[in-house]
């Protein structure tokens, strides 16, 4: 079991992409929060989170995205999640968080 999370950051002008790899749970969520939250506090900034290589996420991960979303609203920033695996996407659907967080629809199957 991969219990680590790698966060790879690509910066462009006004846009940051986070490529995540691994699992997002109670142990790795603080790392994600530490990388993601400061970006959401930048005025008009665009943040893309690529979850293609995230095989597992629990509710702690959802919590990080909720607080990121709240912060983007305060700072007129934009948050978008892309390439979610089926299992991860299901979490956003069950919790209806897909109705308030922008999720790009190309969904890859889980493994």
């Amino acid at each position, binding site marked *: 079991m991969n219990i680590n999370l790698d966060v790879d950051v690509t910066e462009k002008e006004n846009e940051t992409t986070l490529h995540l790899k691994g699992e997002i749970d109670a142990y790795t969520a603080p790392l994600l929060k530490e990388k993601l939250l400061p970006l959401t506090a930048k005025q008009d900034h665009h943040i893309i989170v690529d979850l293609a290589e995230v095989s597992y996420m629990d509710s702690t991960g959802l919590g990080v995205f909720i*607080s990121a979303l709240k912060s983007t609203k305060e700072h007129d920033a934009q948050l978008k999640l892309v390439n979610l695996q089926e299992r991860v996407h299901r979490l956003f659907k069950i919790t*209806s968080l897909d*109705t308030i967080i922008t999720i790009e629809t190309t969904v890859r199957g889980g493994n």
Partner: protein
Amino acid sequence: MESVALDLDNYRKLLKEYLLTHDETALYQAEQLSKLSVQHNVSPEEIIHVHIKALKELYPELPEEVNDSLNFLLEAMISYGLALQEYQHLREKQSALESEISVAANMQKTLLSTKKPEIPGLDIGAISVPANRMNGDYYHFIYDNDHTLGIALADVIGKGIPAALAMSMIKYSMDSFPEDLRQPSRILENLNRVVERNVDPSMFITMFYGLYNPKDQTFSYASAGHEPGFYYHKETDHYSEIEAKGLVLGATNNATYDQEVTQIEAGDCIILLTDGVTECHLGDRFIERDEVLDVIKRYMHLPAQEAVEHVYKHFERLQDFHLRDDFTLIIIRKDV
């Protein structure tokens, strides 16, 4: 504890006796002295120190190497004594924390305790097992004077003490709603505002609320992003998902919830669960929802309480089973 000085005269006497006679009684007394030293917080270097002093008094002409080696030992034992002190301090701290957590866990049990109501015509079973000491899942039955039965099932994100505290908040807000406001959608709308205002931005709660009305035998329900339960139709012998869409509590301040209603026939069952059930690990693989339903089906012929306990035991028995999250399962069957 106050540390007391070791009795040098006594020690010297024992040492001398032993060196001269090799008498077991002296050895035994030294043993007692050493036990007493622990009780009185006498440090190990203190004992070495007394030993050196006594030895020098008995043999003033010790060879220099022996003398030096004893001082060497003394230095080494000073570090040992410090490390030991630190270790004991941590152990005391840990046991204080342990007992505080156990007080909190007991308090949670009392605060959040719910009585499974005895209702003619309904067979109810419920089990809730925390992954750790404190439970972040919560279920509650509200049997009102008008004979309606409210069923609340909630799962706080995260585990441990913060989750348990958030649960207490939910319970007390729920208790404070007037009876005429106890419609599932209204309850969730109100709780959503309470949660949004009062918890950390990264915290949220998923919740299912159902209301059974025995007069017209209807079950009304609404869900705030909670793991869908299952509905068993006796007539068609078919299981379906209890679908209700709604945002988790605490994500926005103005969420609204759709309320669904279904007619319950004799023999039908309502099965509610938290995602601790579907997030059970088996080695490095997850137990899928279908598998969970298969296990539930296997025990559905039993009375509801026995069924929920068997389902939990089934997963608990599996090799490599690892409860990653709190586990809660409720089965409500309308008697034939």
